[in-house]
């Protein structure tokens, strides 16, 4: 197993954990309505989206064509 694979495995597992906790945090935040709470909702949501991107990267869905030329 080369370094890149290890990195991908760690990233994948980490992304799932972070995604889960981000969603739990988001659910806790959802009923609140202050300005800071609303901004946090948006930012936590985007962070969860970032985890999705990481998962996609781990499976090589993105970038298309596997990089390089």
């Amino acid at each position: 197993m080369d370094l890149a694979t290890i990195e991908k495995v760690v990233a994948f597992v980490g992304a799932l954990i972070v995604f889960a906790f981000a969603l739990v945090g988001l659910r806790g935040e959802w009923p609140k309505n202050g300005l800071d709470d609303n901004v946090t909702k948006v930012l936590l949501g985007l962070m969860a989206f970032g985890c999705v991107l990481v998962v996609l990267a781990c499976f090589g869905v993105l970038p298309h064509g596997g990089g390089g030329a």
Partner: protein
Amino acid sequence: MAVSVATHGHDAHDDHGGHDDDIIYQETRDMRLMGFVLFLVSDVVLFSSYIFAYIYLRNSIQPNWPPIVDGHQLPRLDTAFAAFNSVVLFGSGVTMHYALESWKHANKGRFNLFMWLTIFLGLDFLGGQGYEYAHAQIGGWSGNIFGASFFTLTGMHGIHVFLGVCFLFALWLQTQRGVYTEHRFFGLTAGTLYWHFVDVIWVVLFFLFYLW
């Protein structure tokens, strides 16, 4: 003349000093919060400008990306490592969120744990960026437009992360010195928002430089 003046509930509070103080705190906190969010908005514009520049420069030399410099095709950046490093940063965002939640629930032990986890993950991310900078074979900062965009944007983000780590550390020191209470912790709110903002900027940069 019709006098239309709204009357409101909280007008029976002129007896105990503490109550008045609370209202003053609440109003100033709301103003500071709004000001801070507007500051974040203007920072978003700062990043957006450079992101626009990156997309513009990239489109100007389509379809070769990364560009060909002196007849030599530049390699793509290391996506696997970046994915790992991204998870580190996103993770720190989540721990920061839980740190603030712990503070709101007056759980000091958990607050300290999550705070230090956040600072540690932030530093880890910065170390990873250093590693990335040392290994990115894209001609350095001033070599070509790819290097220029990459190092400028991620460098600016890195400075934000570094300032964020300092910010969080200062906040932690303040909590140890008892600056914040269970009900008054605007600094922690601001720090959390700032740290989330830094993370979310990275979502965009990660996509632009590694996944596009």
